[in-house]
Structures are given as structure tokens and as C-alpha cells.
């Protein structure tokens, strides 16, 4: 089973979460990235995520493995949507189970931060005003 995956269809969270349950896990932290109706002050109607799939899966897997090395966690998964998404849709899901909550939170935060900054996935936003564009943040990605 992959720790990181790309999904072309809506992400089903319940089975992802269930896979992380373990009798020795007392804490579960999760993160969901939702498509917002605005970005940098512009109204957004929807977006498209594109990935360099082969490398994205490889780099995503590396991020998750690093989380296992750095934090005392029991299990973790991350899934990122690609394709067309509407406002409100789930773009990315991260879940981490651990004995204690500190490691669960820290690993969850680490995974989403690293996935956003390293995994080759690009966001193409469609604006209410009719235009559209790729987001190529400079130079350190802003905390979004």
C-alpha cells in the first residue's frame, strides 16, 4: 500500500482514516485542504491540479517516509487530488495516528508542508473575471 497517492476522483476519507486505526494509537491528527473561493484577493470559481505523476508519487512517498523517521507515529497517509475541482472540494488529505498527540500534530504538519513545497503538483486557478493562470509561488512558497 502506498503511503502517498494521487487521486483523479473525489478522495474518500473514511477508509483512509480507518486504515490508520491501531489499539496503541491514542491520537489522530488530520489535515484537509479545501478549494477556497478566493486567492490573493481574487474570486476563484474552481481549479485544476496537474502533476508530474511519476515523480510526484516518488517524492510524496519520500515525504511520508521522512515523517516516520522524524516523529514517533504509528501510521500516516496522504492523498492529493488531480484534475478539475470546484470550490469547497477536498484537494488534499493527510492523516496521522500516534500514541501521543504531539507527534501526530507535528508529523501531520510536516507532511502537508513538505508536500506543498516539494511534490511536483501545480494549481491552475480559474477566476470569476474569466481569466485563469498557473500558480508558481516565489521563492519560498507562501504559507497558504
Amino acid at each position, binding site marked *: 500500500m502506498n503511503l502517498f497517492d494521487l487521486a483523479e476522483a473525489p478522495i474518500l476519507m473514511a477508509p483512509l482514516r480507518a486504515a490508520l486505526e491501531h489499539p496503541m494509537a491514542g491520537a489522530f491528527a488530520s489535515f484537509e485542504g479545501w478549494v477556497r473561493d478566493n486567492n490573493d484577493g481574487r474570486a476563484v470559481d474552481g481549479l485544476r491540479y496537474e502533476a*508530474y505523476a511519476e515523480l510526484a508519487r*516518488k517524492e510524496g512517498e519520500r515525504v511520508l517516509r521522512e515523517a516516520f523517521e522524524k516523529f514517533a507515529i504509528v501510521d500516516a497517509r496522504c492523498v492529493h487530488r488531480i484534475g478539475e475541482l470546484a470550490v469547497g472540494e477536498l484537494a488534499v488529505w493527510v492523516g496521522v495516528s500516534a500514541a501521543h498527540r504531539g507527534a501526530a500534530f507535528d508529523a501531520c504538519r510536516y507532511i502537508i508542508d513538505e*508536500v*506543498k513545497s516539494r511534490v*511536483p503538483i*501545480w494549481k*491552475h486557478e480559474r477566476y470569476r473575471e474569466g481569466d485563469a493562470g498557473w500558480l*508558481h*509561488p516565489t521563492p519560498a512558497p507562501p504559507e497558504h
Partner: protein
Amino acid sequence: MAVVTVLYFASLRDTRGLASEQVESSAPDLQALYAELQSRHGFSLPVNRLRVAMDGDFAGWGDGVRDGSEIAFIPPVSGG
């Protein structure tokens, strides 16, 4: 002279109008290859804002251009 497949993503693909192409080049390394393609196609992203991959994994800009390889220039990512 190396023949490689170049993959384009996001704004690079839009600018090039292609997702991939075969390229013949005598560039000594990946950085020189990008410079060549940048001047040919007018890519606005400077090399220091890109990463580069060869055959499905990240590579160094100083790596030689392997004949028959698949090369991708990675614009700043924006997943999540």
C-alpha cells in the same frame, strides 16, 4: 549529440504548446539544455526558479544530458 524527450508542465507546457517533445542537443549539462530551450521557446521562468528531473527522479543542473533520457523542468510547485 544526445536525443532526449523533454516533458513540459504547467506554465512551461502552456508556453511551449506541447506536453513533451523529442529534442536533439549537444548541451553539456541540464542547465545548458534549459538555456537552449528557453531561448528557443521564450520561457519566462529563470533556471534558478526551476528544478530538473531526469528519468523520473530529481537531478542536478550540472548533470550531463543522457542520450535517450526523459527530462522534465519543474516549475515552482503549488499543490495543497
